[in-house]
Every structure is written in C-alpha cells, then in structure tokens.
C-alpha cells in the first residue's frame, strides 16, 4: 500500500511562515518513542520518557503559551488542573495559556489515561517542565539585561529586573531554546507562595457543555461527512452466513454497505437514514451462533472451575503469634458495565493514503498502533486525535468505535465518516469489568487482634486494551481476523485482579494468593479501579466481620492494625466529621458503616463513613449520607477533587446496589437501562461531604479511582449494621437484602 505520511502540523505552519519558536522543525521528537535517552537519573513524571521541554510547553513570540499533555480529558477535569499547574510554575495568569490534549501529531506519548496516573505522570511533567522553562527564561533575561539571575523575578508572563526593566516571555524565547532535555531536579515553587494551584478554579470545559457548544466527538461535523452504523453480531463468535446488501443500498440516503467477514456496517448521508438501514440490515443478516457463555446462576463456581495461574504475591510469617478464633468468607462480584451515557463514537477520514481518526480513546498512541496493524498501514500514516466523549470509567467501546470508523472510512476514501454505537451495542459489546471471587480467612488472637490473614482472589486480567489490533472488535470480525492478544496479569505493585489485594494493615501472619484466569468467556477489560473495587470491598467487609468477632468498634479495629500515619489521618477525619462514636446505635432501620483504603497501596488515601436506611419489607437499601476524607497529596483543585470523590461514591453505590451484566447461554441480555438498571435520582443520598487533607509540597497521588472500593464496603458495612445480616455477593440487591432479612 502506498500510504502517505501525515504532515506534522508544526512543519506545515513553519512552511506557511508562522513563527514557531519553540519546536524543533526537523525531528518529530514529541511523538517519537525512540527519542534520545534521557540523562540518568531520569527527570520526574512523564518527562522520563518525553524529556524535551518543548514536548510540553510552547511559547510563541506573541506570548501565546500552549501546554501539551499526552493525557485525555475524560470529564475528570484535569485539563483545568494541568492549566493551573503550568500557570503556577510559569508565573503567568491562568487564562494566559491553553492546554492541548492527546494527539499523535502534537503531544508526547503518555500511553493510556488510566489508573489515576494522570496527575503523577503528566501533572508532574508539566509542573517540572514549567519550572525549568521559567528558569531558562530567567537565564536568558539575565544575559540580555546583563544582571544576575538572582536579581530577576518573574511575574505575569514576564521577567522583571530590580530597576523595573521587563522582558516578556514571548520576547525572551528564541528558536529551539526550549528544545532541551529536562533536568532531573527542578526549582519548584514553595507551596506557601501558590496563587493558582490549590484554588478551585472553574473548569475550562464546563461552559461549552452547558450551553450546547461543540464539546464532544459526537458533536464533530465536517464537510461531506457521512453517518455510519455497525451491525454487530448477535453474540460472541457468531458467524455471518448471509445478508442482502443490495436491497439495503437501495434505501433512501444509503451510500454503501461495508462487509468484511463478520464485520458489517452501513453508511448513509444522514444519521437517521443510517439507523434505518442498520435496522433493516440487521433484520436480513443471518448469523450462526454458538452457546459459549457460562451459567450466570453459578458464575463464581464457573469462574473458579477455569484453569488458573496461581501465585503467592505476599507472605509474612511470625510463628510467635497465633490465633484462637477463626472465620472465613467468600465474596463475589459479577461482570459489570461501564455504562457510558453516550454510546461510543468516532469520526475517521481516509485521504490520499493517510487516515485521521477523532476518538474518545484513552490512548491515542496505542490506538494508532492497533489501527495501523488492522489496516496494514504504517503508523506514521495515521493520526489519532482525542476528542472528549461521554465519561468512560475505563475501557468501554471507545477504541472499538475508533476501529469501526477507520475500517469504514478506509472503504470510503475521501469522506469523513462518523460512527456512533447504538445503546444496545454499547451494553452488549463493551468489555465489561471482570467478575471476581475472593476467599478470606483470618484468626484473632486473645487480644482481639488479627493473628493470621489469608486472602485469595480469582480473576481475569483487568486490561484487554489495545495493545494490538486483536483487542478491537472490528479487527476480530474482519475476514482476515486478528485474534485478541494473550491476556496477561498486570504487574504489581499496581496489579490488576490483585490490585489492593495485599492488605495495608499490619498483620503478623499473612498470605495473599492471586489466581489469574486466562480464559475470558465474557469480553472484559479495565473498569475504574480494576480489581481494587472488589478486593477493597472484600477486605473492608471482612475487617468489619472481624471487628464484630472481636467485639471492637470497626474504626478502632482498623486503627489498631494500621501504622501508616496518613492512613490513620483520613480514618480519624472521616470518623470525626461523620460523628462516629464507639458503641453508637443507629436509629431503627438505619445502619452506619465505615471503610478505608489507599488506592493501589500507593496512590490517594480515602476513608468513607456511611449511613443507610433499609426497608425491611422490600429490602430496599438507600445511602442516606456519606462522609469522605481524602489525602491526595498536594491539592491542585479542591473542588475538582471533591467532584471526583462525590462521583465515585455515587457511582460505586450504583455498582454495589444494583449492577450485574446478565446473559443466557449465548447472548448478553442486559442491553439497555431497563435490563441493566443503574442508580436514579430517587436513590441519591441526602448529602455527601468530602473532607480533603492537603499535603503541601507532597507528590500528587491521583484520586479518580480511590473512592470506588471504600464506598462499596462502607455501604455494605452499613447494611450489615442495619440488618444484622452480612451480604457478600455483589450487587447487594433488594432481593438479596430481603432474603437475608427473612432468612
């Protein structure tokens, strides 16, 4: 294939006479993973892999300042946070710069926007790059003004001498001045002097979103754009045996039916024409299906019957301590759906051998590589541009929709093609959060402390992201089908199925085993918090069971086993603000619960106290109020963090009370909001209070996922407190609660 190489916008601009001062015009360093090796020791955050300062910051002669991040705004608000960080360290007004997010032509390769890593990868890189750029500008000013650098200060985008002479950053910056590698250590500002960081600055993306501005990939409109819809198979592995494309191509507005093996799509001039044609095509397509799904009624047993690779990931022995009272319990989690409100969408255009894809993917570079493999094109001929979509909470249909759009656009050269999935497709075909089983066993010594702790977790991998075209449905379904890559357990310390499986508490004897299950009978991948959701639910539920056995207050019981001072602080803060008291008694039909975790045992700390009410007649449980305390290190935007934690509590409450993917022998049967109900306004708590413990100058810890596990366990513990019955199988449905009460 004669695929052309997409021109670098910077080169085009330079050719057009625009003054591009800060970018190298010859090397595509920003997107080139093979950049020269950074000096050792490595600079912090993503500077370690993209060390050039101008990969992150560009200053134009007209004082325009642009910040580049390889991360994608997913609705977490970090685009605003990054702008705050850069403004702070550069000493410019917040409004004086703009942030460009993930784009394979413009930004560094920062892999995936996932795992609550954006702040400590990209935020740290931007902070340090900004500080070092500021130092370079001061050095340049010192040279030009013939004064010592120490006699200069920066303010509002300029360097100012003691005699009042001022040079703006735009005047100071010279070609390639910022095309230097970052140093390992930066002269960062003293947090006590922060003006922009630590403030709750209104998010930059919200005004467009609340006024009907073009805010999402779904809103992209291009000249000549056609609308496509995919006809997905009715079930995993179904083979297309027959379909009548001719009759469909005669329908109003239909441009083309695209068939490639089991991949089937239709393109039309208008969106609803595409939907009509898709429905007609789906009705006339014939598929051969096979019953290959496990029995949903007995999912935990079905999972545990699959072959597993067993690994002891933590072991600690102290033979001088032994327990007297022992309990054990099994906890389960079903497959759960990301459930994005906006079905996945992408736009692609194939012109003169070059492909451009606009996608709400979490990883533009991995997606580009996967699409290149699928289309057998060089990656350099493909440009992936991130455009916001509906919240994804992990690996939903975004990458698949990007592949769909690319495959269809490839068959329709020249025209931009917009694909959006239907609700039923998103629900049936997204890669779900994996089902999991945990078995716990622990003994208490005579003093009521844990003497021995045993934890085993059975799980699939928690990431089937591309990594390879085979991770995407279009590539699996096309005639020259590409197989999904071999699943791998995600490495510790972050882990996947074993994320947060190792207890943060100090137990004299402990053993943690990860049973990694390679077979994936149901399509799965990364969902917010990965295994930490279920592992924290299990550990923190079991801690309450043990506290009950020890006849100890659950908060006191946790503190008895925890050394980490920052962990203790969030526990004490949440308990105090909740009004938690030893020996407390909730009003009738109400219950109090508590839970705590440090996400991944290395990111943000989060403790949550909950009050629930349970209707004993119906079994309905409602979260009445929740009080959270969070330590996320240095805070950039208190309101941004609060918004994340509030959202985590509400979303986790929905997962925990209602949600399970359903299926029969052959098909996924939870295909809309009726068959996969989630939390609605009638179940929203009366209030949620989030208390932030700021740690000025401490590393950003990342907090987008820290609330998922504690919220679940806190709720479960409150339900147990209200009913006297312990529920261990997620979700904690009305029926399960009612059955437990009646048992």
């Amino acid at each position, binding site marked *: 294939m004669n695929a052309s190489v997409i021109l670098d916008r910077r080169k085009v601009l330079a050719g057009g006479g625009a003054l591009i001062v800060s970018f190298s015009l010859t090397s595509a360093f920003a997107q080139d993973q093979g950049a020269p090796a950074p000096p050792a020791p490595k600079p912090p955050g993503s500077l370690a892999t993209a060390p050039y300062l101008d990969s992150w910051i560009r200053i134009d002669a007209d004082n325009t300042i642009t910040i580049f991040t390889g991360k994608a705004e997913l*609705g977490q608000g970090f685009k605003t946070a990054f702008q705050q960080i850069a403004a702070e360290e550069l000493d410019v007004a917040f409004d004086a710069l703009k942030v460009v997010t993930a784009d394979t032509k413009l930004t560094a390769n920062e892999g995936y926007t996932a795992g609550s890593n954006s702040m400590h990868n990209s935020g740290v890189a931007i902070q340090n790059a900004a500080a070092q750029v500021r130092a370079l500008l001061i050095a340049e000013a010192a040279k030009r003004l013939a004064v010592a650098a120490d006699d200069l200060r920066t303010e509002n985008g300029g360097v100012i001498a003691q005699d009042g002479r001022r040079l703006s950053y735009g005047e100071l910056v010279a070609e390639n001045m910022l095309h230097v590698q970052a140093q390992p250590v930066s002269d960062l500002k003293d947090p006590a002097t922060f003006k922009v960081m630590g403030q709750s600055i209104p998010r930059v993306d919200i005004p467009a979103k609340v*006024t009907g501005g073009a805010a999402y990939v779904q809103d992209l*409109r291009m000249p000549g754009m056609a609308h496509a819809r995919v006809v997905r198979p009715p079930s995993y592995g179904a083979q297309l045996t027959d379909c009548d494309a001719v009759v469909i191509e005669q329908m109003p507005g239909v441009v083309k039916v695209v068939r490639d093996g089991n991949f089937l799509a239709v393109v039309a001039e208008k969106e609803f024409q595409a939907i009509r044609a898709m429905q007609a095509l789906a009705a006339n397509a014939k598929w051969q299906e096979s019953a290959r799904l496990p029995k949903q009624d007995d999912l935990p047993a079905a999972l545990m019957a699959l072959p597993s690779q067993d690994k002891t990931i933590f072991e600690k022995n102290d033979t001088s301590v032994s327990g007297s009272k022992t309990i054990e319990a099994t906890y389960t989690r079903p497959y759960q759906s990301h459930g994005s409100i906006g079905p996945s969408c992408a736009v692609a255009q194939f012109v003169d051998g070059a492909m451009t894809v606009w996608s709400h993917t979490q990883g533009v570079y991995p997606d580009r590589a996967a699409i290149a493999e699928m289309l057998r094109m060089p990656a350099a001929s493909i440009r992936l541009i991130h455009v916001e979509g509906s919240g994804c909470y992990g690996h939903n249909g975004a990458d698949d929709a990007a592949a769909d759009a690319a495959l269809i656009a490839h068959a329709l050269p020249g025209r931009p093609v917009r694909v959006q999935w239907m609700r039923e497709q998103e629900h049936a075909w997204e890669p779900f959060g994996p089902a999991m089983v945990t078995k716990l066993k622990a003994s208490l010594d005579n003093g009521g402390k844990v003497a021995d702790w045993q934890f085993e977790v059975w799980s699939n991998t928690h990431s089937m992201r591309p990594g390879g075209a085979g991770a995407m449905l279009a590539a699996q379904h096309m005639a020259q089908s590409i197989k999904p890559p071999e699943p791998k357990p995600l490495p510790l310390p972050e882990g996947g199925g074993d994320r947060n499986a190792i207890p943060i508490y100090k137990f004299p004897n402990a053993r943690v085993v990860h049973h990694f299950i390679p077979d994936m009978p149901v399509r799965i991948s990364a969902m917010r918090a990965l295994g930490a959701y279920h592992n924290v639910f299990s550990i923190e539920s079991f801690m309450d069971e043990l506290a009950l056995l020890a006849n100890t207050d659950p908060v006191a019981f946790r503190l008895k086993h925890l050394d980490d001072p920052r962990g203790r602080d969030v526990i004490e803060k949440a308990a105090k603000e909740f009004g938690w008291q030893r020996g407390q008694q909730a009003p009738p039909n109400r219950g109090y619960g508590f839970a705590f975790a440090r996400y991944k045992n290395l990111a943000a700390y989060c403790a949550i106290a909950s009050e629930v009410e349970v209707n004993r007649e119906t079994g309905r449980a409602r979260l009445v109020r929740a009080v959270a305390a969070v330590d996320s290190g240095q805070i950039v935007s208190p309101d941004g963090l609060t*918004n994340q934690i509030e959202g985590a509590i509400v979303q986790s409450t929905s997962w925990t009370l209602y949600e399970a993917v359903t299926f029969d022998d052959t098909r996924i049967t939870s295909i*809309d909001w*009726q068959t996969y109900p989630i939390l609605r306004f009638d179940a929203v708590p009366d209030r949620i209070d989030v208390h932030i413990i700021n740690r000025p100058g401490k590393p950003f810890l990342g907090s987008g996922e820290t609330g998922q596990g504690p919220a679940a366990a806190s709720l479960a513990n409150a339900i147990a407190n209200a009913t006297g019955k312990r529920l261990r199988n997620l979700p904690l449905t009305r029926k399960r609660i009612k059955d437990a009460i009646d048992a």
Partner: protein
Amino acid sequence: MTTLKVNGRDHQVDAEPDTPLLYVLRDDLKLNAAKFGCGLGQCGSCTVIVDGKAVLSCVTPLVLLEGKQVTTLEGLGNVSAPAPIQRAFIEEQAAQCGYCIAGMMMRAQALLQRVRHPTDEQIRAELGPHLCRCGTHMRIIRAVKRAAQLMDTAALAPTNQGIAR
C-alpha cells in the same frame, strides 16, 4: 418539507415525518445540546422543551411537532450571555463528563418555569427519568436550586431577558 419552530425560528426540514426530533436537531439544524444516549426514552440525554414541557426528543417523531415551539439548551443562552440555569450549572460546577447535563438542564428549566421554587423532593422526582453515570447528582440538585434563585434576580432586573449577569 416540515416547518419546525426551534428556538424562536422557523426551519424548513427535509426529513421523513417519523424521524425522531433528536436527529432533526442534530443532523439538520446542527445543534449540539440534545444528545443521543439510548434512543429508547430511558436516559433523558436528549431532552428538549416543547411548548413548555420536557420531551424526550429521541422518541418524538417530527410529525408531531408541526406548529409547536421547540426549545433546546442553545435557545436559553450562550457562553457570553448564559441563562440563569446555565450560570447555575457553571457556578456549581455541576458536571463531570457533562454528556447528560444538557438534558437534565432542559427538564429542570421546564420545572422552574412551572414551579418557581421547587423543593429537593420535587427536583429529585422531576429528574427521575434522567441518568448521570459520573455521579454528579448532588451538584445537579444544587444547581437547579441555584437557578431558581438566579431566575428571581433576573426577573427583578430591568431588562427582563431571562439572562442574569
């Protein structure tokens, strides 16, 4: 051709009469606010106001709308002159991804036009048909209450344009 009145203006629309309003708004009139969420009337993302009532545009065919007044979020205000409901959602930072928010705002607007000072319970009940996956519910409720206050201020202002500054 169907004549459709949207945000105070007549539009000649060339679409099949059974085309759901949502696609006419997005595809023919190039409006962004109403969103495709489910196409089944289950999530509320596509909500617009028709003759003062909140309507799910994804299940409302064009043929039913002749002679009616359709209002979308774009019709309430814009970034430089936001309507009270828009100002309220900005001030409360009542969005995460924000995909559901336009629909929420339109139903809230319809409620506030009917009930000037709704209680929390009324707001929750009214927003029952709407789903938010990010869990922004607490802020959405606060924003609707704030919008009610801002509308009072706007009503008192000399230029009663429904735009509070």
